[in-house]
């Protein structure tokens, strides 16, 4: 698939440096435009009425008073969207059930969670829209609700869908339930495996739902014309996916919807789906005005995807020498109000880092009256890893083995088996463990009430569909465009790879993200896929340009293209026999653009495969206040195999950012519900993400085991880093105070209760 792939061992000129990002100055001067920063003449403001109930049948919605309010231009309900048949279909890379999706955007028969959208109003001012919302009269029949996954699985639990039969169970159950799906990955003989173990530990764990916590609330602006053409400005992780979902949900042709990629103020998976976009488009169509919707922070917490909370049981058996002989996991995940938790990923990733001959990993996808879960950084893997990496730590103690050495002994490498079937195809895990074993601080003694914990994590990483274009300007500067939203510095890494391939300075490459009409399809910026897959497209396009530049040089030299080579940014004669020609720069060739065949530019598309998984191993030192249960992070070291760092600082930034999100998940972040099923901490005051004063400097260790499938050896770097922290901190707490925490978050009241329980 790749032409003249670079030798991954070769010395790079710009790849691996850390230049300033192209989007940097607009972002430090306030000029960058995010989802909420666009406005248009004649624009209306929309406000959404949301359900105050966790579970209620919608008996009637009376919008007459609201519609009569001066300044109100349009009101929509769920029933204004076309309905969809109940099935799991494309066109997206993962089959979607649009019957579910349209009901998640706006409730129809029932409100399934507090904050579920019921109606939306567009008016000339936000204040009028807000007052109109307060005038809408909804009659609800409040129903029994369920929040916790265990409660939702009980036979007598209130049903969200009266006809939902569990998938993946044979024979199919005769009665409906809240269990949407059961899945299992098995290998070997689990009973025999445990029978051969010297030590077996089985333990149950709970984790809380946690939100991606991006600082930018979902916002968009839509302009729908009488000709059926619509433009949408939206902050998302993938404007092509926003286009596909929105067009399908509103019932329009994809070609009629042009989506502009606004700067995105954080996503972490939560902006791979749509919430406000279809409402804005429908309101704009209905009113003939541009319509802007901005979620409030409360809306974001109550109505957009957190990742699942869970109940899990994990059992692992080892030999005295540390060999893992069997592992069994049961993972019950909250999907939220509609099926689709990341439980499959969790069951696959749970034991993925280890060579285990006998594995049984079972997952349940369970609906309850919470917002539907959305992807969050390595979806599912951090949750199952909390359980697995905690149990491994206990086993290491039982057999008196260093916890890193236990992991090293069982670490997978290329050719190792997996529970889901195919063999691992890459090394990299052992190297991350070794990096910590070699770390000067790893054996540093600790003080009273202090403890050190380690854990590892696995994430698949993504490939998939991407498109990029490269154009050479008449002065020899370069413009590249991709359709991949830049959430972490991809414009810079694309420019670095283009500069390296063309042999020109980074500064001469202008790197942009194009709208859906200006470049081919790109799948979401998620799954740590962009530097890998979109990077491949960029390099492919650059290679096409190089072929063309050689051709044009051969025309200028009256020789055959095979006599022209491209190196260090110049066309050069392959040898003296061709003639005594001065090397031709990009500028020199571009200067002859017209007479050598016109504009110089190519687009390349790929459905990239060959991506390598990400492995991360981390150690953390904590201090526990034995009188309050407060846990202080003293030191955190995170090693991750990045394949090859394209932009060194941004790779480190991904690792540090993921670790700190993990620290919040471990210690304080959680969705807290009251007895009526209402979220009681829907704000940044009581949903406690880490603040600067909570943290020390986090140390990122970049391990580079190149992936031969990528021209520069890239492996995705965005996600694996959030997998280990929760278990690492739990293991550190155990080493500090001798208490095993099995429920997240490990908040002060829980830790203190564990201490007092003795």
């Amino acid at each position, binding site marked *: 698939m790749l032409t003249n792939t670079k030798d991954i061992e070769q010395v790079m000129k710009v790849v691996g440096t850390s230049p300033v990002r192209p989007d940097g100055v607009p972002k*430090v001067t306030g000029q960058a435009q995010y989802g909420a*920063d666009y406005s248009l003449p004649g624009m209306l403001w929309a406000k959404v009425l949301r359900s105050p109930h966790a579970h209620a049948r919608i008996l009637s919605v009376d919008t007459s008073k609201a519609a009569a309010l001066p300044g109100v231009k349009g009101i929509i309900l769920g029933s204004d969207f076309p309905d969809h048949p109940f099935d799991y279909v494309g066109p997206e890379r993962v089959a979607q059930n649009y019957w579910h999706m349209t009901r998640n955007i706006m409730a129809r028969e029932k409100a399934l969670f507090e904050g579920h959208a019921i109606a939306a109003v567009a008016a000339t001012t936000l204040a009028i829209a807000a007052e109109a919302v307060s005038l809408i009269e909804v009659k609800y029949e409040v129903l029994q609700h369920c929040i916790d996954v265990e409660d939702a699985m009980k036979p007598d639990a209130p049903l969200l869908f009266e006809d939902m039969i569990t998938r993946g169970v044979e024979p199919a159950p005769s009665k409906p339930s809240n269990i949407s799906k059961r899945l299992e990955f098995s290998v070997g003989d689990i009973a025999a495996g445990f029978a051969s173990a010297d030590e077996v530990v089985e333990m149950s764990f709970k984790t809380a739902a946690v939100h991606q916590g*991006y600082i930018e609330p979902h916002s968009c602006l839509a302009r729908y014309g009488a000709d059926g053409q619509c433009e949408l400005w939206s902050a998302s992780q993938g404007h092509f996916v926003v286009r596909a979902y929105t067009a399908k949900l509103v019932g329009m042709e994809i070609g009629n919807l042009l989506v502009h990629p606004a700067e995105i103020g954080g996503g972490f998976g939560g902006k791979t789906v749509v919430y406000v976009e279809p409402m804005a488009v429908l309101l704009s169509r209905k009113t003939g005005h541009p319509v802007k919707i901005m979620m409030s922070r409360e809306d974001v917490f109550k109505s957009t995807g957190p990742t699942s909370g869970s109940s899990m049981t994990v059992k692992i058996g080892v030999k005295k020498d540390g060999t893992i002989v069997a592992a069994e996991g049961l993972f019950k995940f909250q999907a939220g109000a509609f099926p689709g938790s990341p439980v499959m990923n969790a069951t696959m990733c749970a034991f993925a880092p280890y060579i285990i001959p006998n594995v049984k990993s079972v997952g349940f996808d369970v609906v309850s009256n919470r917002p539907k879960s959305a992807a969050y950084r390595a979806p599912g893997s951090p949750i199952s890893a909390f359980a697995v990496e905690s149990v491994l730590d206990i086993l290491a103690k039982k057999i008196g083995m260093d916890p890193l050495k236990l992991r090293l002994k069982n670490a997978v490498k290329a050719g190792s088996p997996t529970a889901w079937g195919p063999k691992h195809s890459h090394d990299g895990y052992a190297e991350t463990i070794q990096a910590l074993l070699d770390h000067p601080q790893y054996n540093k003694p600790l003080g009273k009430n202090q403890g050190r914990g380690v854990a590892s994590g696995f994430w698949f990483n993504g490939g998939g569909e991407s498109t990029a274009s490269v154009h050479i300007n008449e002065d020899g500067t370069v413009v590249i465009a991709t359709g991949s939203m830049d959430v*972490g510095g991809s414009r810079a890494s694309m420019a670095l790879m283009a500069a390296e391939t063309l042999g020109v300075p980074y500064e001469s490459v202008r790197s942009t993200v194009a709208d859906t009409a200006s470049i081919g399809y790109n799948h979401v910026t998620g799954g740590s896929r962009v530097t890998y897959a979109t990077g491949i497209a960029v390099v492919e396009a650059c290679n096409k340009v190089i072929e063309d530049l050689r051709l044009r040089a051969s025309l200028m030299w009256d020789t055959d293209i095979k006599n022209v080579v491209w190196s260090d940014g110049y066309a050069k004669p392959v040898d003296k026999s061709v003639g005594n020609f001065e090397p031709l720069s990009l500028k020199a060739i571009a200067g002859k653009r017209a007479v050598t065949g016109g504009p110089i530019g190519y687009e390349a598309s790929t459905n990239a495969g060959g991506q390598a998984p990400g492995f991360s191993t981390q150690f953390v030192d904590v201090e526990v206040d034995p009188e309050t249960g407060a846990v202080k992070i003293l030191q955190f070291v995170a090693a991750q195999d990045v394949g090859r760092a394209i932009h060194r*600082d941004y790779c480190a*930034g991904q690792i*540090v950012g993921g670790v*700190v999100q993990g620290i919040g998940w471990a210690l304080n972040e959680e969705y807290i519900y009251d007895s009526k099923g209402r979220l009681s901490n829907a*704000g940044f005051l009581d949903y406690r993400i880490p603040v*600067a004063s909570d943290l020390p400097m986090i140390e990122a260790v970049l391990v580079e085991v190149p992936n031969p499938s990528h021209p520069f050896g890239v492996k995705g770097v965005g996600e694996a880093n959030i997998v280990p922290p929760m278990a690492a901190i739990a293991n550190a707490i155990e080493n500090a105070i001798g208490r095993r925490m099995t429920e997240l978050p490990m908040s002060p009241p829980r830790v203190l209760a564990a201490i007092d329980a003795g």
Partner: protein
Amino acid sequence: MSKHHVTTVINGDPVEFLCQPNVSLLDVLRDELNMTGTKEGCGTGDCGACSVTLDGRLVCSCLVLGVEAQGKSIQTIEGMANGETLHVLQRKFLEHAALQCGICTPGFLIAARSLLERNNNPTEEEVRFWLAGNLCRCTGYNNIITAVLEAAREMRGA
């Protein structure tokens, strides 16, 4: 609702606007004056993305009424660079990769400048506590703290 006529100074320039008495300074800046560099992350004073200074005092503009701007002087991110010349903090944020998505960056820069105006030689801990009212979900804060310390060093000529 009857609007108040407000006369104020923003980034050194005289500005007049009309606003209803219950509208926040943040909404005035963004929606009336189209100064969208100041961001809304929460609207409740918990994230610091809307940080501005009001007569030199660091505040969340979402917790200030527009009418309170009367006769006062406001500094926003739009006034931080001097023409083509970036403020040293802006430069250090770029050099040290102190931003990823960048939505929190204007608030951090305004807050950091207000710290360095009071204390041009802060410790790492002082920087971390001063900036605790500014949430960043991308960076884990490392590079932000480093950038502020480096900016302080340069401003001291050290």
